[in-house]
């Protein structure tokens, strides 16, 4: 099941390879079908998922079965290293509460991204092949339980993303694409070294061999005593934690590694922005939760407040930058940085409330930001500009659009009744109840104020009031005596058209439903998070 959901897009990509490039509609439909099939599978996974199994570490007897679900585990590469012994790499996938929510999010956002890619006319075949490759790699990252497999998926994401930004992006795309590539590669190559070092330090309790299994690595007793990352080798364990953390922090992106994100977002086409903000950023925090924290819990304990401080910086700095932006898309990009800060803050609390909040925030940020970028794309398609002050008074001419923007903006700033509120509230509850992060949380609350400021201000400038003299559209007196809006060279419907509604409505519904009744997602998270908190807790650590 998991293999199918991972490789469906690649299969679609191979089919597209055989389709002549003039058959654009077939290419789009094949991609969409694969994405929909992924969606169906993710619903099945959601239905069959047993929320009582914890995941994170191996179950009884050292086997991942009984702890992880939908596990598929086959030997992939077995070879003999001269003078060292066997090297075992497994194709090992499975989900627990942390990853299953991300799998659902990925399937959702991928499908919406395909719909959003419909109007792309330039090199359609190449676009969808790369898009499908990217979709597979993202999904693979979330289900991989073997570090080697995870790393392969992680790196495979880079190249399609480079081309998707670089070929289909805006005017400054070359710079944005290579910047993205260099930043993320810089982070991930160090991950490679840590991965190798971990391999030499960990044995599988069942077979006794060295292993790449993330499940085995999450149990401290599987570390070899005098190995390079063994429990006594404090210095290298700290170094490894830090370089791994930086690798993931670049993806999040955490201040001061965030500068690639606004560039990438501004240049990327709308669907790629949606994917980038909706799924890719989550890989950073997911990597921390899956790899960084359980493997080096004592370093996490020692560095909790540092992570919290960086989270607070992200929240406030991101929000202040967003406040200063003239470009609507750049504003949303900086708001992403701000919102990912909540995830970091929640994680740094180290307790169940904070961590559940962080995970829930990851899911909600995925849906809300996807919606924000889609809405930015809608207005950009029509007006060919994203400058906030080129608009004004849109609400009376584009009522549906204005309604969606309002709900999305409010969800983003955390209005009660919408999903963003619950996750942010949980994050703050967690951060306040932990002694280490209490003061950090107090400062971070400022971020909410700034968040409300930039969102409301942009809303006001764009949608309320009158058309500005230098606006990106004209007002034409219609036959009925009312004034109608007219965008230059836009022939489609002025307000949201059917395709846009199909993309936006599900996201909106999810945002509202999860704001009122969060249990469908929270229920899946709880037992895994409790297990994670237990693994990370100082009491367990001191018993080692």
């Amino acid at each position, binding site marked *: 099941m998991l293999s199918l959901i991972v490789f469906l897009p690649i299969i679609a990509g191979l089919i597209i390879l055989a389709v002549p490039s003039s058959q654009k509609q077939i290419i789009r439909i094949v991609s969409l079908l694969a994405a929909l099939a992924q969606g169906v599978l993710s619903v099945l996974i959601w239905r069959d998922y047993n929320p009582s199994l914890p995941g994170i570490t191996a179950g009884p007897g050292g086997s991942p079965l009984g702890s992880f679900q939908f596990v598929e585990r086959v030997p*992939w*590469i*077995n*070879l*003999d*290293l*001269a*003078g*060292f012994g066997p*090297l075992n790499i497994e194709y090992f996938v499975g989900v627990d509460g942390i990853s299953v929510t991300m799998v659902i999010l990925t399937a959702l956002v991928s499908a919406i991204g395909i719909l959003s890619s419909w109007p792309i006319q330039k*090199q359609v075949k190449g676009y969808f092949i790369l898009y499908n490759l990217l979709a597979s790699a993202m999904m693979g990252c979330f289900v991989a339980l073997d570090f080697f497999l995870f*790393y*392969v998926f992680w*790196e*495979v994401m*880079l*190249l399609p993303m*480079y*081309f998707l930004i*670089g*070929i289909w992006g805006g005017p400054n*795309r*070359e710079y944005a*694409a*290579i910047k993205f*590539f*260099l930043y993320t*590669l*810089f982070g991930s*190559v*160090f991950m*490679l*070294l840590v991965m*190798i*070092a971990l*391999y*030499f330090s960990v044995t599988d309790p069942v077979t006794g061999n060295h292993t790449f299994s993330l499940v085995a690595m999450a149990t401290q007793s599987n570390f070899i005593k005098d190995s*390079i990352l063994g429990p006594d080798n404090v210095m*290298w364990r700290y170094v490894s934690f830090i370089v791994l953390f930086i690798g993931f922090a670049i993806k999040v992106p955490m201040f001061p590694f965030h500068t690639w994100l606004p560039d990438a977002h501004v240049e990327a086409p709308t669907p790629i922005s949606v994917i980038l903000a909706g799924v890719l950023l989550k890989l950073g925090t997911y990597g921390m939760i899956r790899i960084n924290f359980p493997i080096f819990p004592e370093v996490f304990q020692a560095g909790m407040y540092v992570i919290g401080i960086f989270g607070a910086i992200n929240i406030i700095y991101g929000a202040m930058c967003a406040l200063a932006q003239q470009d609507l898309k750049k504003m949303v990009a900086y708001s992403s940085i701000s919102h990912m800060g909540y995830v970091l803050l929640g994680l740094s609390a180290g307790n169940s409330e904070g961590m559940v909040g962080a995970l829930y925030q990851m899911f909600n940020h995925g849906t809300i930001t996807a919606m924000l970028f889609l809405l930015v794309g809608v207005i950009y398609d029509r007006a060919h500009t994203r400058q906030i002050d080129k608009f004004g008074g849109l609400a009376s001419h584009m009522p549906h659009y204005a309604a969606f923007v309002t709900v999305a903006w409010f969800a983003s700033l955390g209005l009660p009744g919408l999903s963003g509120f619950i996750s942010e509230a949980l994050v703050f509850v967690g951060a306040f109840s932990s002694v280490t992060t209490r003061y950090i949380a107090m400062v971070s609350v400022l971020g909410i104020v700034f968040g409300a400021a930039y969102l409301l201000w942009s809303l006001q400038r764009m949608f309320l009031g009158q058309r500005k003299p230098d606006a990106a559209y004209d007002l034409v007196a219609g036959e009925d005596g009312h004034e109608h809006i007219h965008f230059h060279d836009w022939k489609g419907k002025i307000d949201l058209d059917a395709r846009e509604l199909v993309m936006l409505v599900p996201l909106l519904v999810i945002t509202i439903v999860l704001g009122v009744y969060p249990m469908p997602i929270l229920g899946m998270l709880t037992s895994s998070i409790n297990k994670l908190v237990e693994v990370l807790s100082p009491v367990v650590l001191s018993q080692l």
Partner: protein
Amino acid sequence: MFELPSGAEIQGIIASLKVSVGFFIPEIYLSLLFMLLIVVDLVAKGRKNTMLAISTLVGLAGSFFFIYQQHSLQMGEIFFGMYVLDEFALFFKYFSVLSGMLAVIVTMADEQFEREVKSMGEYYALIVSMVIGMIMMASSSDLMMIFLSMELVSFTAYILTGYFKRDQRSSEAALKYLVYGAVSSGLMVYGFSLIYGLTAETNLIKIGVALAADGNAHSLLLMMASLLVIAGFGYKIGAVPFHFWTPDVYEGAPTPITAYLSVASKAAGFALLMRFFYIAIPHGTSTISSQTGNDWITLLLILSVASMIYGNVVALWQKNVKRMLAYSSIAHAGYLLLGIIVMGKFGTQATLFYLLSYFLMNFGAFYVVILIANKTGSENLDDYRGLGKKMPLAGAALTVFLVSLVGLPPTLGFIGKLMIFSALIAKGSIYIWLAFIGIMTSVISLYYYMLIPLNMYLREPRQMDEKDMNPGLFAQVLMAVLMFMTIYFGLYFAPLSDFAKYSSAMFGISLN
């Protein structure tokens, strides 16, 4: 005083030679092939060049049979310790023959030859003679043989580099190559003479024994000798600071020869380097500290770091693709040296594996560069604009090879780097800083390698000419096969790794 040997001794020598010849069949076969090609060149009429190429290919392929037979032979010394047959040498026999074959295939694809030269007679014969030379380099276990085989390779390489007689760049490259080669050979021979002076032996194993017995008595002299010898070997592998010939030669030489030199002769240089230093120059094996204090490891370490940094950084500014790949080959020499520095079985396995991956991706990259040059007549980065649309398969294949050269999954180059870095980390924490440098420089390399896909895909061509850009069916198939192999072995590398492990056994030393 020199005494004439007695009759019985002569009988013994002849008997031993007869036995040794049985271990020398692939080399003899290839020498016959070399002569046969000259004869074919003289007698053949009509489509002579194609005929020569095909007979070279078939002939080289035939040598696999004889090499394969050698697996069943007893591994050991022949010709009085001048030459050895072991798994390590067998690896390079396959490697050399295969790269010779690829050089022939690539040459057949290169249209520049049709414009520049009429007769290809000596060309193919020289490729075969270079194969022989490289095989002998990998199998020599005596200072004399090392020198002879190295010169055999070098002289053939000089001629091949200057094969475009009317092309000034080609002639200039050949001359530069010759001058640098002569100097470094001289230095190396001087190093050999110092070693001979210390030990009165020319056989590597005996030198090793004598030097080990010597202890640290002449460590300064030995250091000098190591340095001089490294100058000779470093020139062959193109490592900093003995790299000065590479950019000019790689740019000026016919592209197939560039590919051939950058892969095969570099690999042969590595074979020699490993055999010479592992066996002849003593090294502490008991503790880690005695290893880091060891002279030649430190020397190679400096070479390696300098090559990785210099090669990758200077490549950033290159505007000519061949020149860029030349600098990248310097950097890759640095990565390969990392595996030798580790100096164990695992390190050797990693080095051999990396050579295999480098073989595939570098030949692939040069092949596509040739196909593109056939159509555009240029190797300048600017002329790659918009090629991704005009030559879709070539563009995709080149991208895969370049990604593999960077070392990103799911390609073979990634596994190569993984092996090398694993070998470093398995050694404990003393070499981790080296792995750090290796990894940092490969991030730098991403930038210049990606300049090529950047021009191919992200930029529009200056003028759209509706020229036919189809490189032909055979080229398409070969590119697709090479690309597929790069990815396939990147996902399933067990066979290559097992082969590299089998080949890491060297006669005369047991690595741990």
